[in-house]
């Protein structure tokens, strides 16, 4: 069968991204032809500003070079503008007569700059700021001329003005509105920004209307005359007064247009064979002018072209960042407030910092920041996640409460850091390397940066910094992924929540069933989705779904922690941190017998035997089992430790028997698998020697009972646990903490610690399910106990289940 023909008109960012997405999922479906009016292959338009500023060259910003088109069998016509779409004959015709037939047509013609209809607008020396040709014209002018005027102080105008100043010109900026970037900033923020731009040499004329561009003797523009009569010398005039969706081609072809080519949620125009993406498209009344939403459109259009048909584009919230080196500006959502909105403002003109967050019904709807934009990505994510911020609004403006927004060393303002600063401590990646890779490889997302540089791919504590660096390189093109809709991995379009829901509602009990029902793109998943699916299955259908060892990380398969040299560490459980001479003797004996090189007391109140050979694992377990000791699960996404202090048993201040309480909790939860690891602590009094304030569940004894705290974390980013409720008896401690953990087990996403789970769903929600609704709490608790019923120690169990031959197969090598 002949391949279907796909023609792309517009060889720019949105169109080519759609092709890339399409080639990823259906590489052989279409015979593809591309027409582009510009003489270049696809390049990164947003980096024209660094090119103008002299920080990069045109060659650096090419995203897809000619060989990319050739390698993918794409016919590319550069420098050919399409002038006609013949919908009846299903073909397009270019200026020079070249024709191409299509079965599917993709329009991605971008925008055209708006040129003010004033006398002199067509003079030599007057340019727009849209493409490589415009940029080159500006660079050329800067080499021989002095005076530049930029009309329009929006994002583009200011970036143009900045570039021209860096190229040595004197730059005046004329702006019609009362303040600069009025569509992204409020008046105060704009004032601060204007001040710092003036410090760079920009001269502003506000509320100024252009009357005429004056022709000089040479025939070139020589001045700009304002309505006020004032005249400003100009050998170069840059029109940056806005853009209009470029829909004329579509309009001529009779497609319905209204400020752009009107498209539906699958990016189809009124002719279903014809798609439109990018700035030329109008979706639900909006034509976007930033890259991030266009990329989302590209993905949906590609899915639809590939006939997957699951994705829909539902519109985007956008954010803006000005790409002027050394100046930090961030703006997102609705920042102007209005009916029912509240404003949180922090303003320190002395150091040039201004932050404003607009709230509506306890949700962030917009944010503006100048001077310190470290929290920009976090705010944007909260807007997109529609997160309830009632609990954290008192410190929202002070930042710092999110994973890694300042890195380990309390640094922020990534744009100002020198290139040599180490950003990722785990992988030793410096800022310069990250910036270089982002620009050279044309990266736009955190995932891509992680893949190519390794930065932020290990512990994640530098994620916030990397996000900032990304944002300062690609401006508004960067969108933090929102956790609720982000696909589990590249094998699927479905997010964690959807997968969990399908497993529960459709009663799926095996991995092939999940993959088939949800249309997994790979035959057997990957190392990211398989462990997640395995957990979702066994936690949703305990005693029914089969555990799949091959889908578990090696630690959970070997019941021990793999070390850098391939040996393992073994940690037997010490209930509540308590031990006996007999247990200590068994540990000492085992350590000698298996020549364990290192014995260490862990931070979790027990003893670690490090450097055990893989082949010795079954033997050392058998020895421990004989001594009555069980696995400590120091390796699992599961219950880890319950730390205790001495408590009322011995301590002169103790109000409750914390050791006893801790042992009871640990025995109850033994063998509990969870989305991520779970740690508890019980202290006998508020002096809190067991550090219950940074545990997933913290219990603090008081005279009248116990205080319960949840969602603390002492790891990558210390998070203090939040007060949950007060209870009177040991039984209640077990029921409330068990119910909380069961809710987390049922609704948490894989690899989400309790703190991130609670941040995502809101503490109020958790309380409503566990504290306020007694019947639901009991039901949750019962489901937990049911899941844990009959759990056997994996160390003892493995020997019984596999037998000697099975253990050898799993833990010993085959001699050659």
């Amino acid at each position, binding site marked *: 069968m002949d391949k279907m023909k796909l023609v792309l008109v517009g060889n720019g960012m949105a169109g080519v991204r759609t092709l890339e997405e399409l080639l990823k999922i259906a590489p052989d479906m279409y015979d593809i032809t591309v027409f582009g009016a510009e003489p270049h292959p696809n390049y990164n338009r947003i980096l024209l500003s660094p090119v103008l500023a002299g920080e990069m060259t045109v060659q650096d910003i090419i995203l897809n070079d000619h060989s990319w088109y050739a390698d993918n069998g794409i016919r590319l016509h550069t420098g050919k503008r399409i002038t006609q779409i013949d919908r009846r004959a299903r073909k397009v015709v270019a200026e020079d007569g070249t024709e191409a037939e299509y079965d599917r047509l993709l329009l991605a013609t971008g925008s055209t700059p708006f040129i003010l209809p004033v006398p002199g607008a067509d003079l030599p020396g007057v340019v727009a700021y849209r493409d490589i040709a415009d940029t080159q014209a500006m660079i050329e002018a800067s080499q021989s001329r002095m005076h530049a005027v930029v009309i329009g102080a929006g994002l583009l105008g200011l970036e143009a003005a900045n570039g021209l100043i860096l190229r040595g010109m004197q730059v005046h900026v004329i702006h019609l509105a009362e303040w600069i970037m009025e569509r992204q900033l409020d008046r105060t923020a704009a004032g601060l920004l204007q001040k710092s731009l003036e410090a760079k040499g920009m001269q502003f004329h506000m509320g100024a209307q252009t009357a005429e561009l004056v022709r000089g003797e040479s025939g070139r523009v020589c001045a700009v005359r304002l309505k006020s009569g004032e005249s400003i010398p100009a050998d170069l005039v840059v029109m940056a007064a806005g853009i209009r969706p470029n829909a004329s081609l579509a309009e001529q072809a009779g497609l319905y247009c209204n400020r752009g080519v009107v498209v539906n949620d699958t990016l189809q125009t009124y002719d279903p064979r014809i798609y439109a993406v990018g700035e030329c498209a109008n979706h639900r009344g909006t034509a976007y002018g930033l890259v991030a939403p266009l990329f989302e459109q590209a993905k949906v259009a590609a899915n639809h072209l590939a006939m997957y048909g699951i994705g829909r584009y539902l519109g985007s919230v956008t954010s803006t960042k000005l790409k002027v080196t050394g100046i930090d500006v961030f703006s997102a959502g609705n920042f102007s407030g209005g009916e029912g909105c509240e404003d949180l403002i922090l303003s320190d003109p002395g150091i040039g910092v201004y932050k404003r967050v607009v709230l509506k019904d306890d949700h962030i709807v917009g944010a503006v920041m100048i001077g310190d934009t470290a929290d920009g990505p976090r705010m944007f994510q909260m807007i997109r996640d529609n997160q309830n911020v009632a609990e954290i609004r008192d410190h929202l403006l002070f930042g710092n409460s999110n994973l890694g927004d300042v890195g380990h060393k309390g640094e922020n303002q990534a744009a100002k850091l020198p290139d040599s600063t180490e950003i990722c401590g785990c992988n030793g990646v410096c800022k310069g390397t990250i910036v270089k890779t982002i620009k050279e490889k044309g990266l736009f997302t955190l995932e891509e940066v992680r893949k190519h540089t390794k930065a932020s791919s290990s512990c994640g504590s530098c994620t916030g910094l990397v996000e900032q660096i990304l944002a300062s390189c690609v401006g508004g093109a960067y969108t933090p992924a929102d956790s609720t809709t982000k696909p589990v991995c590249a094998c699927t379009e479905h997010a964690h929540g959807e997968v969990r829901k399908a497993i529960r509602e459709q009663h799926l009990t095996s991995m092939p069933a999940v993959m088939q029902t949800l249309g997994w793109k790979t*035959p057997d998943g*990957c190392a990211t989705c398989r462990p997640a699916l395995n957990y979702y299955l066994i936690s949703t259908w305990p005693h029914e779904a089969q555990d799949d060892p091959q889908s578990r990380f090696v630690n959970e398969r070997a019941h021990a922690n*793999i070390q850098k040299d391939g040996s393992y560490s073994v940690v037997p459980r010490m209930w509540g941190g308590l031990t006996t001479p007999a247990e200590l003797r068994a540990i000492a004996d085992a350590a000698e017998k298996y020549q364990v090189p290192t014995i260490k007391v862990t931070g979790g109140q027990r003893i670690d035997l490090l450097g055990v050979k893989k082949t010795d694992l079954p033997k050392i377990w058998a020895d421990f089992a004989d001594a009555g000791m069980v696995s400590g699960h120091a390796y699992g996404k599961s219950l880890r430790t319950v730390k205790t202090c001495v408590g009322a048993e011995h301590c002169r201040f103790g109000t409750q028997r914390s050791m006893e309480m801790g042992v009871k909790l640990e025995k109850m939860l033994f063998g509990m698998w969870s989305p991520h690891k779970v740690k508890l602590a019980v202290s006998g009094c508020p002096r809190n020697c067991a550090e219950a304030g940074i545990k997933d569940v913290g219990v603090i004894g008081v005279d009248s009972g116990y205080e319960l705290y949840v969602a603390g974390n002492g790891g990558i980013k210390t998070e203090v646990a939040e007060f949950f409720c007060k209870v009177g008896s040991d039984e209640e401690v077990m029921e409330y903490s068990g119910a909380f953990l069961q809710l987390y087990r049922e609704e948490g996403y894989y690899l989400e610690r309790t703190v991130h789970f609670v941040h995502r769903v809101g503490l109020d929600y958790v309380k409503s399910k566990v504290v306020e609704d007694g019947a639901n709490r009991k039901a949750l608790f019962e489901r937990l106990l049911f899941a844990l019923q009959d759990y056997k120690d994996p160390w003892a169990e493995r020997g019984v289940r596999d037998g000697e031959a099975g253990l050898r197969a799993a833990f010993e090598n085959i*001699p050659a």
Partner: protein
Amino acid sequence: MIKWKRICPLTDIPQRGSRVVSGPDHDDIAIFRSGDDQLFAVHDKCPHKGGPLSQGIVHGHQVTCPLHSWKIELTSGNAVAPDVGCTQPFAVRLEDGVVWLAI
């Protein structure tokens, strides 16, 4: 000279799993059995920092290293881009349910 050696019955290697062959004349070699029952063999040494690939999660015809999650193509031993590196592949074959390895 390359010699074919009889290793074990296929059933000794779990699907999406592996076994390690060790001997005095060579480094450890990992034999993998994929979900569609194909066999692969590579040095059990990740090109990144020498992690034991045999202990990784097998998906498709790739394995993800247990130490820092590089992905390795089992056919060629090459790391999946953007990572760069290679671990030596070996020939394996199945005969009457028995796995043979060329060392």
